[in-house]
C-alpha cells in the first residue's frame, strides 16, 4: 500500500507541470500546439503518463478527476473495478494493460468475432455483450443494472450526457478527429507529437488502472517509441521518387472505392516509406472515390481494410481473371494487402505501431529486409499479452484473423 501511495505521489509531483497542458483553460480539446511542450519533454518516462488534471487526495477520497482525450474532465473512481470498454479498440487496450478482470461488459462483437481474442482470454466469451456504436443510443439501464463504475465510450455528446445524468463516469479515449483540419497540419506534425498522439490513449488508461498498468505502459511505450524511430530513421530521407504510392480502401460498404477521410493515415504511410494517394480528399461522411480516380492514381500498393464488408471477397474480385481492376499495377504485381487482425484490427488499439512495422516491410521490403514480421508479432504477443503464438497463428494474424459472427460492427 505504501509503495502504491509513494508511486502515486511521484506521478502526481512529476505530472504537476502537465496540468495546464492537458486541457485548455476553457476546457477545449487539446491541440498539437498546446501539447508540443509536453511531448518534447522526454527526460522522465513518467512525464508521459497523461490523464490527471487535479491533485488526487491519496488518503481519503475514493474518486479523482482525469481529463480524457477530448479534454473532458471526468470524475472517476480511484480504482475502478467494474468497467465497460465499449469502443472497438478499448477491450484490447484494457487486456494489454492487464485490466481484463475488471471488465463486466463489452461490445458484443468482441465476444465472438476475434478467435485470437478468445484464445488469449477464454473468459471473454462469458462477458456480457451489448451493441455499441459511435451514434447508437445508449440504454442506460444496461449499465446501471451491472453497476458499471467506468465506461470507455465514443465521442457522442448526447450519449455521454446520459452517463453523466446517472453519475456513471464515461471517458473518451479517441483523439478528437478534428485535431487536424487539413493535410498541412498533418504534415507539420513532429515525430514526438506523433508518438504522443499515438500513445496517449493507452497512457491515460494505464493511469486509471494504477501502478502495474503504468509499468506495463512504460514497457509498451518504449517498444513503440523505438519502433517508430526505427521506421523514421530508415524512411525519412527517401526522395519522393522512392516513396511507394499507397491507397487505403474498403472502409465501409463492399468495394475498394469506399475510403477513410484519406488524410488520416498520411503520416503513418509516410513513416513506412509510402505516399498515401488521395490525402487531399477532405472530410465527409461517406467518401467514395471514383473508379477512374483509382486508375488515375494507379497506386503501387492497395490496402484492404477489414471494416468494409467481405475484405477477402474484395481482394478475390480484384484478382479474378477479367476483372476491370486487372490493369492496376497493384493488382498486376499482387500488391493487395488486407490489414492484419488479431485480438483486434491491427491498425487500431495498442497494435498500430506493430501494424506499421508490418506495413513498412510491405511498402519498402528492401529497406526493412531484416525484419521478420512473424517473429515481430510473436514477440509482441508474448511481451504484451503473455501469449505464445505459433508461426501458423502469427500468419493468420497477417492474413486478417477476423470472423464476424453477428451483426455487431467492430469500430
Amino acid at each position, binding site marked *: 500500500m505504501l509503495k502504491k501511495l509513494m508511486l502515486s505521489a511521484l506521478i502526481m509531483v512529476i505530472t504537476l507541470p502537465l496540468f495546464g497542458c492537458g486541457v485548455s483553460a476553457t476546457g477545449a480539446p487539446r491541440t498539437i500546439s498546446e501539447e508540443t511542450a509536453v511531448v518534447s519533454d522526454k527526460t522522465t518516462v513518467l512525464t508521459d503518463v497523461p490523464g490527471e488534471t487535479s491533485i488526487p487526495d491519496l488518503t481519503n477520497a475514493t474518486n479523482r478527476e482525469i481529463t480524457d482525450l477530448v479534454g473532458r474532465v471526468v470524475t472517476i473512481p480511484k480504482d475502478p473495478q467494474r468497467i465497460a470498454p465499449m469502443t472497438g479498440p478499448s477491450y484490447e487496450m484494457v487486456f494489454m494493460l492487464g485490466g481484463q478482470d475488471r471488465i463486466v461488459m463489452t461490445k458484443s462483437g468482441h465476444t465472438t468475432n476475434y478467435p485470437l481474442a478468445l484464445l488469449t482470454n477464454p473468459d471473454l466469451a462469458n462477458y456480457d455483450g451489448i451493441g455499441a456504436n459511435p451514434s447508437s443510443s445508449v440504454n442506460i439501464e444496461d449499465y446501471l443494472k451491472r453497476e458499471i463504475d467506468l465506461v470507455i465510450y465514443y465521442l457522442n455528446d448526447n450519449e455521454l450526457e446520459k452517463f453523466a445524468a446517472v453519475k456513471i463516469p464515461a471517458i473518451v479515449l479517441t483523439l478528437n478527429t478534428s485535431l487536424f483540419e487539413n493535410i498541412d497540419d498533418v504534415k507539420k506534425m513532429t515525430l514526438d507529437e506523433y508518438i504522443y498522439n499515438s500513445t496517449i490513449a493507452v497512457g491515460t488508461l494505464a493511469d486509471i488502472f494504477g501502478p502495474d498498468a503504468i509499468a506495463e505502459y512504460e514497457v509498451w511505450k518504449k517498444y513503440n517509441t523505438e519502433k517508430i524511430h526505427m521506421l523514421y530513421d530508415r524512411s525519412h530521407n527517401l526522395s519522393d521518387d522512392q516513396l511507394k504510392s499507397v491507397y487505403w480502401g474498403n472502409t465501409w460498404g463492399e468495394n475498394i472505392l469506399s475510403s477513410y477521410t484519406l488524410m488520416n493515415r498520411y503520416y503513418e504511410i509516410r513513416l513506412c516509406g509510402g505516399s498515401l494517394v488521395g490525402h487531399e480528399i477532405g472530410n465527409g461522411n461517406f467518401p467514395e472515390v471514383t473508379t477512374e480516380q483509382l*486508375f488515375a492514381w494507379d497506386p503501387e500498393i492497395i490496402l484492404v481494410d477489414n471494416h468494409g464488408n467481405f475484405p477477402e471477397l474484395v481482394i478475390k474480385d480484384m484478382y479474378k481473371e477479367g476483372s*476491370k481492376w486487372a490493369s492496376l499495377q497493384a493488382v498486376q504485381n499482387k500488391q493487395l494487402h488486407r490489414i492484419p487482425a488479431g485480438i483486434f484490427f491491427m491498425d487500431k488499439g495498442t497494435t498500430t505501431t506493430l501494424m506499421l512495422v508490418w506495413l513498412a516491410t510491405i511498402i519498402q521490403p528492401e529497406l526493412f529486409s531484416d525484419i521478420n514480421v512473424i517473429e515481430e508479432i510473436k514477440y509482441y504477443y508474448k511481451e504484451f499479452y503473455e501469449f505464445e503464438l505459433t508461426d501458423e497463428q502469427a500468419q493468420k494474424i497477417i492474413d486478417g484473423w477476423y470472423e464476424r459472427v453477428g451483426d455487431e*460492427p467492430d469500430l
Partner: protein
Amino acid sequence: MIMILFPISLFILSLFLGRYIIPANQILKILGNKFLGMNFDPLWTSAAETVIIQVRLPRAIMAALIGAGLSMSGAAFQGMFQNPLVSPFILGVSAGASFGAAVGLVLELPAIGIQALAFIFGLLAVAITYFLAHIYKSTPILMLVLSGMVVSTFFQAMLSLVKFVADDEEKLPAITFWLMGSLGSIEVDDLLIAIIPIGISMIVLFLLRWKLNVLSMGDRESRSMGVNNELIKTIIIIATTVITSTAVAFCGIIGWVGQVIPHFCRMIVGPDHKVLIPATMLVGAGYLILIDNFCRLLTANEIPLGILTAVVGAPVFAFLLRKTKGGWN
C-alpha cells in the same frame, strides 16, 4: 434534330472526359479496335483501355438508358394521371425498392442480391398500390394516388426501421450512400442485365404513346372513345414500374429526372404524347449523361447522382412552373 444530337454529342463527349488522362486519338483508336475491327497498334496502356471500355462506356450507356427510361416513365405517368407534378415514383416503387436494398445491405448480400431485392420490393410496392386502388373492376386515378401514398409511407417507415437497426459504421453509410444514387459501380455485366427489362419497357411505352393521348383526357372520356383504359393503364404501370425498379436497383434513387424532363419537353414540343414520349427519351438520356459527368469529374470523390439531379432539377422545375404558370396543355 437538336434533340437527337443532344444525347449523342454528350455521350461521345463523356467518353473523352475523365480524371484519367487519355489522349483523344488513343480513345478513338481504342474504340476503333474494339468495335470497328480496326488494327491500330495498341500503344496505349491496358489501364487506358479498361477506363474507356469498362468504366466510361458502360457508365455513359447506363446513364442514357436510365435517363431515357425515367423520363419516359414520368411523361407516361403525367399523361395518365393528368397531372404534371407526378413522378415515376408516385406509386411507391422507390420506397419499396429502397427498403429492399436496405434489407439486402443489412443482410450483407452481394451486389446482385441487393439489386434483386430492390427490384422485387419495387414491384411488390406497386402491386400492392394497384390492388389497393382496384375497386369495382377499375382503378380510379385518385385511388391510385392515395394508395401510392399509403404504400410509400409504409415502406418509408420500414426503411427507417432498417436504418435504425443497421450499424452506424458500415451498413448505415452504405444504405445512405446507396439511397443517394450513383452510377459509380456500374459494370458491363450490370448493363447487360439492366438493358433488357428497361429496353423492352421503353419499347412498350413508345408503342403506347398514341393511347396516352386518349388516357390523358380522363377515365370517362377515354372509355367513351372505346379505349380499354384499364388494360392500357395496367400495361403502362407495369412498364414504368419495371423501368423504375430496375433503375433504382442498379443506381439507387435518382429523383427529379422523371418530373423535370417531361415538363421541359412539353414546353418545347407540346403535350402530344406521340412527340412528347420520344422527346423525353432523348432529352432525358442526354440530361442524365450530363449530370453524371459532373458527378464523376468535379472531385476525386464520387458525388451521389441523386444530389445533383435534385440540386439542378428543383430550381429548373420551379422556373418551369413559373414560366408555364402551372398550365401544361
